[in-house]
């Protein structure tokens, strides 16, 4: 009888586990917004408690925090919308980016006007590099519809800003190189491998539609944020209430360990990422990146810095992209000019990395969560495969949490002589 009960209970537990795994996998797109909402709520909880000390009820304190959160999101959305370029500005930016890219490519490989002869580097790797450049150009170059809009703007159609002569000249130069590149691709790979003008929607368009799809999932984030903020320990109490008496004290202790670890880790990471972001902003501004771009690059580098080396990659990548496109710079350091700006961006990335490793991390994290580099690398790869960029961002905190949970559980079970 007892054996049968154990078998039935085990089978039900297994079924429950399978259902949980299936649901988790099916709803994986929602996991990251859910986690972000929960973590934000967790980070804001101390503020709610502080507000409650002024005499406000929990409901009022939560309402106040949620209003502040909503107002903050509104202001952010407004700011982003204000600086976010419209369609025509994006087309002009693509023309400029393609022109600068072609210029640098030609300079690097010593290409002649026909784009078929170059230096030794081109002789050795020309075919491969041309294929790579063709893919980038394909993303940047216009679809027929975009081309029509651009030309209408140039012709001064009402409702559109007139395209400047400089940008139009860049467009003509881009078009000429695009045709030569198409001929070159035909030589390299044969007919059918290239089309002078992309007939399919560009990769950029696909990325944007995927981004929009992703954003729709993020609607759940504020809802989760509010849900966890409203909770005044009921979820924790419910979890503890389900635990058998024998495991009551160990469970409370494990949850306390997790609470302390997550709290200190979150605070530490937020501070570290902020420091990295501010360092990028200041140093990039010093070497001549305009204030608004220094802020944007610093913000992105700071956010992505939650992934080990992510901040460096984003800071360096965006900084170099800026250096590539910049036509003139006004640095505080007189020896920086548009030609050597890329080198100074590299210096900024290296200095920030060194500061992060030697000052910021030891100062704010104190090596409290030392994870094996291999575990971190595998975790980031796995999480990014499953959940994309957001998965990579939250891989390390999740691994840290799982590590603390496992260690604390084992310690408590041993102390209470359960195992």
């Amino acid at each position: 009888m007892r054996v049968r009960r154990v078998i039935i209970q085990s089978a039900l537990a297994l079924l429950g586990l399978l259902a949980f795994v299936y649901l988790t996998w099916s709803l994986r797109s929602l996991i990251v917004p859910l986690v972000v909402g929960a973590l934000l709520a967790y980070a804001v909880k101390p503020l709610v408690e502080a507000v409650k000390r002024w005499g406000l009820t929990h409901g009022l304190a939560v309402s106040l925090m949620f209003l502040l959160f909503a107002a903050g999101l509104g202001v952010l959305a407004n700011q982003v919308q204000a600086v976010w370029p419209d369609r025509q500005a994006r087309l002009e930016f693509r023309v400029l980016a393609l022109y600068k890219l072609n210029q640098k490519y030609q300079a690097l490989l010593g290409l002649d006007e026909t784009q078929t002869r170059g230096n030794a580097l081109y002789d050795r790797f020309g075919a491969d590099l041309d294929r790579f450049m063709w893919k980038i150009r394909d993303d940047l170059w216009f679809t027929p519809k975009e081309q029509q809009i651009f030309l209408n703007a140039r012709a001064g159609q009402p409702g559109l800003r007139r395209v400047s002569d400089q940008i139009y000249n860049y467009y003509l130069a881009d078009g000429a190189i695009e045709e030569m590149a198409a001929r070159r691709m035909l030589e390299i790979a044969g007919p059918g491998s290239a089309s002078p003008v992309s007939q399919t929607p560009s990769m950029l368009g696909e990325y944007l539609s995927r981004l929009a799809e992703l954003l729709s999932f993020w609607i759940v984030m504020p809802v989760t944020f509010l849900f966890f903020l409203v909770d005044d320990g009921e979820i924790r109490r419910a979890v503890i209430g389900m635990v058998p008496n024998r495991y009551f004290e160990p469970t409370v202790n494990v949850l306390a360990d997790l609470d302390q670890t997550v709290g200190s880790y979150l605070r530490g990471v937020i501070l570290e990422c902020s420091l990295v972001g501010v360092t990028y902003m200041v140093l990039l501004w010093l070497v001549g990146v305009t204030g608004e771009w220094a802020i944007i690059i610093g913000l992105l580098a700071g956010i992505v810095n939650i992934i080990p080396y992510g901040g460096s990659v984003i800071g360096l990548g965006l900084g170099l992209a800026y250096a590539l496109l910049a036509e003139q710079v006004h640095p505080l350091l007189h020896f920086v000019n548009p030609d050597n700006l890329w080198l100074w961006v590299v210096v900024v990335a290296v200095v920030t990395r060194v500061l992060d490793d030697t000052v910021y991390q030891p100062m704010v994290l104190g090596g409290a969560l030392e994870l094996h580099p291999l575990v971190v690398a595998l975790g980031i790869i796995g999480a990014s495969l499953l959940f994309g960029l957001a998965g990579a961002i939250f891989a390390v905190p999740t691994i840290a949490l799982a590590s603390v949970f496992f260690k604390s559980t084992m310690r408590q079970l041993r102390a209470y002589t359960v195992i």
Partner: protein
Amino acid sequence: MSIRIDPERFHGLLATREGKKKSAISDFLYRVPASLGGKAPPQSAVEFLAGLPALAGLAKKELCLLASAMHERSFGDGEVIFEQGTPSGALYLIRSGCVALSRKTDGTDGALASLGPNELFGELALLLDDAPRQITATSRGLSDLLALSRPDFDSLVEKSPVVGMKIFRALARLVALRFIMLMEEIESASSK
């Protein structure tokens, strides 16, 4: 020398000590209201705490805060609440039922006391860091307890230092009373 405390004397000693001048702590610990007991109607934790004289100084809001930090646990007959030698994780307050306290010395179990409704035990969990349990607590019959864990208590003190101070004071008095009682037991055992 092993010390055995007679459960009846355990109550009697304190009753004598407090005498006519019944303190809030002795009421809190040892007075059993008629409304409580095995057949008492279920009370909310706040109502229960409000009925304890030792917490008379706490406002309704503070009692709510304290109740929200506590966990309701039910134990079956013979179920061990905590065991001697394991870490001290929580203080327990008896809402209904009976709890037997015992201590194992030289391999033999010795009964120390039997506690009833409104009494508390395991208080060292809130006072000492990493102190192992000195006794074993076992439920006699069905017992409904309120548990206040160390992490929850720390969080409560952080949220409301006033409530924390009042509870600390109550615990300090309880420990002092038990210390005095223990001294008397030692004297009594030595004189024999």
